[in-house]
């Protein structure tokens, strides 16, 4: 199975005194349909890993490959195109724009992807229906519950049909029942081949994924497949 994303010897160091080694020699391979939980204590480098995977930050050393191509040589515009077409993001705080309704918030995920205003709106409605919010199209974030907001954010991330979905503590602001629904939704979405990487503290989420990457002090200290897919894919 070919990797949709590959990190090889990635180090991220923030200058300062002393310098902060957020990532140290990280190797990670992500295949289509992977459901990965990244676990670890605060400050272990989980979010930095997600930002490097999302091309929001460039590694200090090492290589990031997306679709078989190394991204360090790409310009800002080219990296932006990678994010627009290949990657989807879900955040703990949802980051919905308060003055836009659900459809417009989801359509924002397609704004930099192209297509006419009307096409983007109809793709946004499709995405909202996929996450079960077909009845909340015209609601603004203020009129939605926390779980519904996160569903809108997931719809926004998926609208452009990315190959990798990156989620940073997606259930961190939700109660456990709602969080479980969101996890179930994310797990379902990977069935069409979208790889999912979830950064979390929550053991429940980790158990719902089929691969657990444990981090400490910027290093990957274990990378285990436990899910039903483990047998199908073999060892990394």
């Amino acid at each position: 199975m070919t990797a949709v994303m590959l990190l090889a010897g990635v180090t991220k160091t923030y200058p300062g005194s002393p310098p902060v080694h957020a990532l140290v020699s990280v190797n990670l391979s992500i295949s289509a349909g992977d459901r990965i939980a990244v676990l670890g204590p605060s400050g272990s480098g989980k979010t930095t890993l997600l930002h490097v995977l999302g091309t929001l930050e460039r590694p200090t050393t090492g290589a990031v490959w997306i679709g078989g191509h190394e991204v360090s040589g790409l310009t800002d515009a080219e990296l932006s195109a990678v994010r627009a077409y290949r990657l989807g993001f879900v955040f703990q705080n949802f980051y919905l724009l308060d003055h836009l309704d659900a459809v417009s918030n989801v359509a924002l995920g397609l704004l930099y992807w192209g297509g006419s205003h009307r096409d983007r709106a109809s793709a946004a409605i499709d995405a909202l229906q996929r996450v079960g919010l077909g009845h909340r199209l015209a609601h603004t974030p203020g009129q939605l519950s926390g779980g519904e907001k996160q569903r809108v954010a997931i719809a926004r991330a998926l609208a452009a049909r990315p190959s990798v979905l990156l989620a940073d503590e997606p259930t961190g602001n939700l109660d456990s029942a709602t969080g479980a629904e969101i996890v179930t939704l994310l797990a379902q979405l990977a069935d069409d081949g979208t790889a999912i990487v979830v950064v979390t503290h929550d053991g429940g989420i980790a158990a719902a994924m089929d691969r657990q990457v444990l981090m400490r002090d910027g290093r990957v200290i274990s990378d285990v497949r436990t899910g039903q897919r483990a047998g199908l894919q073999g060892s990394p």
Partner: protein
Amino acid sequence: MIAGAGVRNATEQVAGRKSRFRLADAVRTATVGLRSRALRAALSALGVAVGIAAAVAVLGISASSKSNLLAQLGAEGNLLTVSAGQDFTGGPAPLPLTAEGMIGRIPPVESVTATGYLPNATVRRTAAVPTINTGGISVLAVQPNLLATLGGSVARGTFLNRATSHAQAVVLGAVAAQTLGISRVPVGTLVYLDGQYFSVVGILRPVPLAPEIDEAALVGFPVANQLLGLGGHPTELYLRAAPDQVTAVNQVLPFTANPAQPEAVQVSRPSDVLAARAAAKNAFTGLFLGLGAVVVLVGGLGIANIMVISVLERRTEVGLRRALGATRRQVGVQFLAESLVLSLLGGLAGVGLGALATVVYAMTATQTPVVPLSAVAAGLAVALSVGLLAGAYPASRAARLAPADALRAS
């Protein structure tokens, strides 16, 4: 992958397409951003609106007055006046009886008319009004062709003709009629003029080029000579010269009017006086334009200030948009477009307000309102440049935000 393949080629394989953001998207994004902070946006655009309104109103009012003035001047300002001055002893030097005829023979002179001032004559409503209450009305002897030369017209009744010039008939200037309280001229309307009753046969409309006519009671030369002791000498001549010959005529007038004492003749061009008055108004135009420019500048600083604050407040939005695939440039364009929309709305409101002020002013001054297209275009151009300048720095700040830092800001 082939080694050495272009980066762009690689990106196309990676991404399929380039990150896109159309002009319509930029404008839509900008208006959404502003609508979410409508009050703040309106207040920050107000400065630009007020400044541009002031400038457009000043230019509009000035243009309206100018077009009104040109209408007043009638032809190309070819009216000249010749008046009796003083001789070298300081005594009055009346114009010779021949002056009018001589001037009429100068080829470029199209028409000429004489008036004679009667310094001792007064006009009152009746004999019962004390002599001292003259109301500042002077008595002038005039010729029937006065109105044709001055471009004046009659508001009520008729002007003097050859017949009524011999009779005890008087025509009142606009101001004189108002002073005497006469607004209509039914048969039998009389005024007491230098000891005798004269019939009022007409009232004139104001004559902008010769305000002295407005304040005068006009009688014919024959009756002035017979009853009022004028002696036939004109004191002032009005003439129209061919428009391209005005300067040449101007030079020969003193010698022609009074060959014996050319230095005792005063020649003037009333349109110069009006033009000077208009120029004095223009001095204020410059001042107000300067003030308008200062207000626009301050308004622009207000917009820049609001945009800088907006970028700081919306760091996470910037981070989000970068994560969704916006390039640095697209983020910059978004904030620049917000600034431009803001200042352009201010500019449009300002042009509207300025035009409205011009119309209101012109209507109260009974002028035809003129809003120069150049003022409108300049107002909008200034608004656009202010928006561009005010938005440039905040936009570049927003564009330079590192996406990961912007997302961590919350």
